[in-house]
């Protein structure tokens, strides 16, 4: 697999992430593989984990959790004002109504973008991220570059993601942690009054829910 291809379609101009590709040698990888094998065998032998449970878990995290879940939450909030109110008051509960929850999905807070306010999320300490609604974080979210620069120069970083904000729009940066995980409720794009909930959900992507982009109009 080539990770380098990914650097090209990456929207922001920050230097390529040190975490973005594997620069490990084959030997190092072999060593790490053996370390994980050893740990896994030991934990299986002690009955602390089970092989089929591990496989099932990987399957869920790679395929069932992801931004398509968060997109459903956003689309519902756009079409149902009562749901939106519940979402802004008790995000964890409102997200659970749609069947999403679990590890790293506790203590959710949803922050709403408006014509005067733009919200963006980071985890300055490591990589706290709402797994049930966004899946696992992208590589750049885990980078020291994003984690420090979005706090110091949010407008500059947003510009690199192609998001130009007028000076009169306030930018709020939210630091996710083990205690609170934030999700951005993007603004519903203009010209979507007659668009169905499912079609709206299809327009919402991960970056808009982290807050580094906006949802583009049709």
């Amino acid at each position: 697999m080539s990770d380098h291809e990914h650097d090209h379609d990456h929207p922001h101009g920050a230097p390529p992430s040190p975490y973005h590709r594997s620069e490990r040698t084959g030997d190092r990888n072999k060593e790490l593989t053996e370390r994980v094998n050893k740990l896994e065998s030991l934990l299986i032998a002690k009955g602390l984990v089970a092989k089929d449970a591990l496989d099932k878990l990987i399957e869920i995290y790679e395929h069932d959790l992801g931004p398509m879940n968060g997109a459903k939450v956003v689309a519902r909030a756009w079409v149902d004002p009562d749901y939106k109110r519940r979402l802004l008051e008790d995000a964890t509960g409102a997200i659970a109504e749609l069947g999403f929850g679990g590890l790293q999905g506790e203590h959710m807070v949803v922050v709403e973008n408006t014509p005067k306010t733009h919200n963006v999320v980071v985890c300055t300490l490591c990589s706290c991220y709402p797994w049930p609604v966004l899946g696992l974080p992208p590589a750049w979210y885990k980078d020291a570059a994003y984690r420090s620069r979005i706090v110091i120069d949010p407008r500059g970083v947003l510009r690199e993601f192609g998001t130009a904000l007028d000076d009169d729009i306030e930018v709020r940066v939210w630091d996710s942690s083990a205690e609170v995980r934030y999700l951005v409720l993007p603004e519903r794009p203009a010209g979507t009054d007659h668009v169905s909930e499912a079609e709206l959900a299809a327009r919402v992507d991960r970056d808009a829910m982290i807050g580094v982009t906006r949802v583009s109009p049709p």
Partner: protein
Amino acid sequence: MSKERSARPDVAEMGDTPLPRKSGELVFHDDWERRAFALAVSLAERGLFEWKEFQQQLIESVGEAERGDPQHPSRSYYESWLMSLERLLKKKRLLG
């Protein structure tokens, strides 16, 4: 974890197929990363440790690797992940 989640591999962005995606990136580079991830999550789900404890350990390991030069961490994210898991299990005497 809830079992009702609908699986949509076509739109999931964390698959391991290296298809170019608008805002997607590969999450796991190597299989051992995927398995180290699963071990930590599975142990937390079974209550062997609190997820918070693992996160705290991960924050320390990531911070340690970035201490010299944050742009050039001394080990990759999942190497820090694996080290955190090993340290926490040792601390909890779950390997002895």
